[in-house]
């Protein structure tokens, strides 16, 4: 039997019904979605949230089994469609006991083994999920009515619960995928609707599943300095995903970390800064735009209670938001690694050195892709780095000064500050940038600029033994000269080492000297075709 059913899981607040409607509409006449919780209502004659979820677990398991049988019967009737979806929550949350549990009967589910092609678990920004769940008749609606500071505290508690819930949902979905022996795909609903449509209607082994890696945190921290970069990444993402056989996973399709606003005194407050822009227009995303909430951060303070809070309460809110932020941060790394793993064709890194330092996230993702390649053995997992030469040269300047700080003997704070100022001047100087472009020029450039560097250092400076070999003898002056010569040689040699190069085993690094972004994108198209075998639509 052809495997053409996609199991779609997701926690409440994802708006999975709306999501699947949009996906099904994007493949006219070719797909059909069945909702297991609807079938549970049909077979039991009881409303799902108010009656079924509130009953004892044994009863829920029985209703789940009956609902499952009804859902399978409907799926069989829809076999004329090339793609079908079966949607359900992998984890339930008991409204009274607040217990998380998995209602699934594995023996029944295993009967779908010859029919299911993959398990997709839909995820979304927790702030959007929470906004939906604060609406009337939803589980957190009561919190939206609290106008006191306790309402703010309860809100943070709810968001922590949503985070935990998402991890449970992903874990249970992973278990289902293992049970059925099919891939698991974690997919943010802010991806383009065709991402899921392609996985549903094509054979997975004919698609190129790619992960887009790019700097995020450093850009967010200095968003005023680099306002155009998110749009540039989005443009690149649109270009990659327009290829007919590509499914592109974009990390910024979930954007939660580092978004809380701050008071003038630097305390975290219940408001949100702008999220990373999306590569798809609102009418193209899997999830419909958030309509119920008046603004993106409404959920954090629905009754505007924070404005009237003073010192102690503000500190309390700050501490709770810091806790929430930490928990969000923990999930960022694990989620991005999961996305790299499910991108079985590999990683495309876009300008990983932008603006002047290699992105920590991009390096770790490329490293993980490489580790997966080693683990998988015979694999088609590859890697393409698309950058520009100026980013690369700036990264070399940053690395040069970083190594100086690393290797110089006990630099004072003042010396460190002088070196940082000098580094900033070099980064802004086109001539010096040129001197870091070609490997053979670097030593000469440093030699020429030595007086500038030495002016920033204390008299009689020397390199630590970690950077130089111990001198054999001679006068103090000669030893000092040899130390400095060898120290700079070490710094220059290490500056030339590219931290990404060893991670690109199958694929390539492309960093042209181009002023025009249009040319860069055009060239990238050709490389994507040759490295990954992506194809234009017929």
């Amino acid at each position, binding site marked *: 039997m052809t495997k053409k059913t996609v199991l779609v899981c997701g926690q409440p607040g994802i708006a999975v019904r709306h999501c699947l409607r949009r996906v099904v509409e994007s493949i006219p006449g070719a797909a059909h979605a069945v909702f297991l919780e609807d079938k549970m209502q049909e077979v039991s004659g009881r409303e799902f949230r108010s009656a079924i979820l509130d009953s004892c677990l044994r009863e829920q398991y029985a209703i789940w089994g009956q609902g499952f049988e009804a859902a399978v019967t409907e799926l069989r009737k829809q076999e004329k469609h090339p793609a079908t979806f079966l949607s359900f929550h992998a984890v339930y949350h008991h409204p009274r006991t607040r217990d998380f549990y998995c209602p699934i009967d594995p023996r029944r589910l295993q009967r779908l083994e010859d029919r299911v092609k993959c398990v997709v678990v839909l995820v979304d920004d927790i702030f959007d999920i929470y906004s939906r769940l604060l609406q009337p008749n939803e589980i957190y609606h009561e919190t939206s009515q609290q106008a006191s500071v306790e309402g703010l505290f309860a809100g943070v508690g709810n968001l922590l619960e949503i985070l935990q819930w998402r991890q449970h949902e992903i874990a249970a979905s992973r278990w289902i995928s293992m049970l059925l022996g099919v891939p698991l795909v974690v997919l943010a609903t802010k991806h383009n609707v065709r991402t899921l449509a392609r996985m549903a209607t094509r054979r997975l082994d004919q698609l190129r599943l790619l992960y887009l890696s790019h700097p995020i945190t450093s850009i967010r921290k200095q968003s005023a300095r680099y306002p155009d970069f998110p749009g540039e990444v989005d443009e690149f993402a649109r270009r990659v995903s327009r290829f007919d056989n590509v499914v592109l996973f974009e990390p910024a399709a979930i954007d939660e970390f580092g978004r809380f606003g701050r008071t003038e005194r630097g305390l975290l407050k219940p408001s949100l800064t702008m999220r990373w822009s999306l590569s798809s227009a609102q009418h193209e995303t899997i999830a419909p735009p958030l309509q119920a909430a008046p603004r993106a951060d409404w959920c954090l303070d629905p009754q505007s209670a924070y404005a009237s809070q003073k010192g102690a309460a503000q500190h309390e809110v700050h501490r709770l938001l810091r806790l929430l932020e930490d928990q969000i941060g923990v999930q960022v790394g694990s989620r991005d690694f999961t996305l790299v793993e499910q991108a079985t064709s590999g990683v495309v890194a876009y300008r990983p050195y932008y603006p002047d330092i290699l992105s920590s996230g991009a390096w770790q993702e490329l490293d993980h892709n490489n*580790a997966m390649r080693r683990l998988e053995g015979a694999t088609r997992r590859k890697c393409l780095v698309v950058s520009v030469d100026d980013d690369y040269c700036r990264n070399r300047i940053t690395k040069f000064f970083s190594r100086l700080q*690393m290797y110089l003997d006990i630099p004072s704070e003042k010396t460190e500050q002088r070196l940082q100022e000098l580094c900033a001047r070099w980064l802004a100087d086109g001539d010096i940038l040129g001197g870091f472009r070609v490997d053979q020029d670097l030593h000469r450039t440093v030699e020429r600029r030595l007086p500038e560097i030495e002016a920033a250092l204390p008299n009689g400076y020397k390199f630590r033994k970690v950077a130089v070999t111990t001198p054999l003898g001679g006068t103090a002056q000669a030893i000092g000269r040899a130390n400095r010569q060898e120290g700079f040689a070490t710094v220059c040699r*290490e500056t030339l080492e590219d*931290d990404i190069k060893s991670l690109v085993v199958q694929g390539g690094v492309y960093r042209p000297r181009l002023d025009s972004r249009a040319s860069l994108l055009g060239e990238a198209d050709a490389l994507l075709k040759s490295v990954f075998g992506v194809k234009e639509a017929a």
Partner: protein
Amino acid sequence: MAEATVRLVVNGSQEDRDALDVVKESGIRFTLVGPLGNQRTPLLIDGQKMHAGLRSIVEYVEAQQQG
């Protein structure tokens, strides 16, 4: 050249310098990586295991020397 399995990620802070000294003195073969954006503390990666911060790196080195 065969790739060393241990990587030490550093940016240039005092904690990074201390971590480099500890690993270098231990004789463990490693590759130095960095600087990386937003990497606040030294990070030692041995295969799939990560050790973040000087204290954790010292514990790792001690365990290697004992084991």
